[in-house]
């Protein structure tokens, strides 16, 4: 069984011969590196990977991967990827998308792939701006953002990706930062291993049109105090020297300082990503600086049955009980008469 023997890969085995054409300093470069690293650690044969994308800067991603790839049309990657995975559940299917591609033009497909829980990994590059069309606001741009199509500031509320995923009955949601390759690699591996639709929101920097949009939480000097990396089964602790934590105060989360008011590590909430009730996870996904640290890591990872498996099981079940085994059987079934 030479076929099933898995080769040992290194990240460079997943690099294609195409020149990477993102802007120098773009966050996408780091995401590409982290995904190539994650893939090399998954133990899945290279020919089983399929990368599907829509339109936008990030959607050029498949060209840079030495795997099967399909660069689709704007907003439709979730639908194309759904077809690929349903047709061949053996493949490891990855959808590369951005905030405009997934949440504006592709919003409908995005919520429905999540609802169906098709086992694909959606990597959503969120730079809160339209890059490829050169700087218009997106569905995740903060209210008031001044862009080329909102010269006086936007007047619309942004989507929160995690909220939308959970609202769409999502079973897996994680968040990472483009430049944190170690954390990102770990998250991509967990997303790949999760059976069902996994959505990873990457806080990604657009160096040209929205530079520094995530700096307030990702800058080296402040990131420990302004983000919290959630780990399943671990207390919700963050800050330089693990100074702070999260507790439940009535129906809301509250930031507390360890050592003050009798707070110890034991007083803190323990992260449960596997809890199916999304209440706490929902609040964690929606935490915003400065009131809260921004949550990174796997926020929700709940097991559930997947669409493509259910389809195959249904087919097997029907086939077992049907007298129609081939087309000739069907053609001659029911009301057929013979003219002699």
């Amino acid at each position, binding site marked *: 069984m030479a*076929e099933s023997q898995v080769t040992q890969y290194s990240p460079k085995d997943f690099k*294609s011969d*195409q020149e990477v054409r993102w802007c120098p300093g773009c966050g996408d470069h780091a995401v590409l590196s982290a995904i190539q690293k994650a893939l090399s650690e998954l133990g899945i*044969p*290279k*020919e*089983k990977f*399929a990368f*599907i*994308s829509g*339109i936008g800067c990030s959607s050029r991603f*498949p*060209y840079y*991967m*030495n*795997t*099967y*790839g*399909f*660069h*689709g*049309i704007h907003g*439709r990657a*979730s*639908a*194309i*990827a*759904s*077809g*690929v*995975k*349903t*047709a*061949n559940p*053996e*493949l490891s299917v990855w959808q590369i998308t951005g905030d405009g591609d997934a949440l504006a033009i592709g919003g*409908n*497909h995005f919520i*429905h792939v999540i609802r169906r829980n098709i086992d694909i990994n959606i990597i959503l590059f969120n730079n809160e701006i339209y890059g490829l069309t050169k700087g218009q606001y997106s569905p995740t741009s903060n209210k008031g953002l001044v862009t080329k199509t909102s010269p006086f500031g936007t007047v619309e509320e942004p989507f929160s990706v995690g909220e939308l995923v959970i609202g769409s009955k999502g079973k897996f949601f994680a968040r990472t930062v483009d430049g944190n390759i170690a954390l990102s690699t770990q998250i991509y591996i967990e997303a790949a291993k999760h059976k069902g639709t996994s959505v990873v929101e990457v806080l990604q920097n657009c160096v040209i049109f929205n530079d520094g949009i995530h700096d307030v939480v990702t800058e080296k000097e402040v990131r420990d105090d302004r983000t919290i990396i959630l780990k399943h089964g671990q207390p919700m602790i963050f800050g330089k020297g693990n100074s702070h934590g999260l507790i439940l105060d009535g129906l809301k989360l509250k930031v507390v300082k360890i050592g003050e008011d009798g707070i110890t590590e034991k007083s803190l909430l323990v992260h449960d990503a596997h809890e199916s009730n999304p209440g706490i996870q929902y609040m964690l996904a929606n935490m915003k600086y400065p009131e809260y640290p921004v949550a990174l890591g796997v926020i929700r990872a709940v097991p559930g049955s997947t669409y493509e498996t259910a*389809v195959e099981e*249904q*087919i097997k079940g*029907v*086939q077992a009980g*049907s007298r*129609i*085994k*081939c*087309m*000739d059987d*069907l*053609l*001659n079934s*029911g*009301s*057929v*008469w*013979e*003219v*002699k």
Partner: protein
Amino acid sequence: MGKKSQVIEKDEVVIRFSGDSGDGMQLTGTLFSDTAALYGNDLSTFPDYPAEIRAPQGTVGGVSGFTVHLGHSEINTPGDYADVLVAMNPAAIKANVRWINQGSTIIYDKDNFSEKNIEKAGYKEDPIKEEKLEDYNIIAAPISSMVKEALKDFGLDPKSVLRTKNMFALGMVYWLFDRKLKYTEDYFEKKFHKKPEVGEANKIALRTGYYYAETIEALTPVRINPAPIAKGKYRNICGNAATAWGFLAAAEKAGLRLFIGSYPITPATGILEELSARKDLGVKSFQAEDEIAGICTALGASFAGNLAVTSTSGPGLALKSEAIGLAVMAELPIVIVNVQRGGPSTGLPTKTEQADLMQALYGRNGECPVVVIAASTPSDCFHYAFEAARIALEHMTPVLLLTDGYLANGSEPWRVPKMSELPEIKPPFAKRDDQPYLPYQRDDKRMVRSWAIPGTKGLEHRIGGLEKTIKGTVSYVPENHEHMVRLREEKVDKVAEKVPDLKVYGKESGDLLVVGWGGSYGHLITSVRELQSEGYEVSLVNFNYIKPFPKNVREIFKKFRKIVVCEINLGQFADYLRMNFQEFIYLQINKVQGLPFTVKEIKEKCIKILEDK
């Protein structure tokens, strides 16, 4: 059963069952046509129902009809005008009076002709009088009270009792056409095996109607002898089912799994429903969130190596345009079925039209060629769906299959093929030793690229909507773009090698060549044969292959004095012919009423053209 002293023999007859949308007219018509088919008649049927599920009871808008045309010889249309009208209420008279022959038989439920119902239908007095139908063969049957009486000790609730009215009417029609009740009785036994009392009630209503017709002696039974039909096994099939089965057959021949990604839309939904029921044959049916996701999931499945299809109607085709463009660029096999309906916009959802031809040929951005094929009868939807899939798979191209509401819902007996009679389908799969695999490298003969299926070791590659080189590298080089545009066009042109010659029905030359395409075939062939038998020098060609054309078009056209193009639109195919075969003059017969042609109007217009200098 009953004695029949006198029976008239006839060659053909058209019967229209008509009533409120809740009266069960579709079932009544279907049961009658099945019985006729089993008896050996040739036939053609057409249902006609409102877009509203339950339009206000008793109104003309709520009338649902089912027409059966059966004959002792070949039948190609559901018939223009009915010889027998079964009207369950006054609105059914109103809706159908212009579609019945002079002096035809009208059977109606006189219990339902109350003042209120007469008024609802828009009449002031007795519809028979108001429409001046007194000289017709009018049978005013007390259908409602008869079924109430027949089933009074049966213990069924009054609503269920009245639901058997249609079977009483059917029983009358069976007696009138000298038919046996057995097939219909068997149907009820099977259908209601869990509710035998309902099955029994329907059977009683059926027999009561049959004996009632015999007793009143107002009708002379008519016999339509079996038609001389080629030997073989037959079944009734409608266009949507035949389309679905054509795809199933193609998948089996190609050894591929069938994937349908679709969104429900009238009148195409039947294809998705039929394939969703075929899990036993391994179909993966994906009811998508919208039309776009329908084709995009199918395209994803095609990329992954399935036989992929998506079904829709005009407005849905508009939504799929961009993804069809992607399929053209990616050069992936996919079949898009457009069951045409009245447009534009929502238009006439339940009515037929042929006005999406230009949309099918050109409704996309860029130079975006796809193969366009049209089916011409309910049963040949099987053949053309099979061929659409065969061409898509063997030529790595999207194929647009056009049917229409008339074909989709119409049905006719169909000689069931054996799978061994159908041609093999051999997709150009890339092999593992095709390394390095270049996704846009083509064979020299057909310009077809090879198909590398994800999961195959060593053939990893990227495709997509951006213009590319042979290697699959994104390219903005001007010459490369033009080269690729021309290659894609040439590839579709090469499909002509598979296209059979156009067939001339009638003499190879003459005064008038009637030209049709797709679903108007039945009415055109009937018209042309009648004209021929009346001594006119008229022939017919009906196109199934629209892009690319059959190779012998010019040869045929030049042998006729006049050419008239008949289509259910304002002249799209005529314009397309003008573009492609400019040396001919094309006259036109057009109709855009959501209805098929009638034989009468085609004949009249053709005769006028023949008489014009």
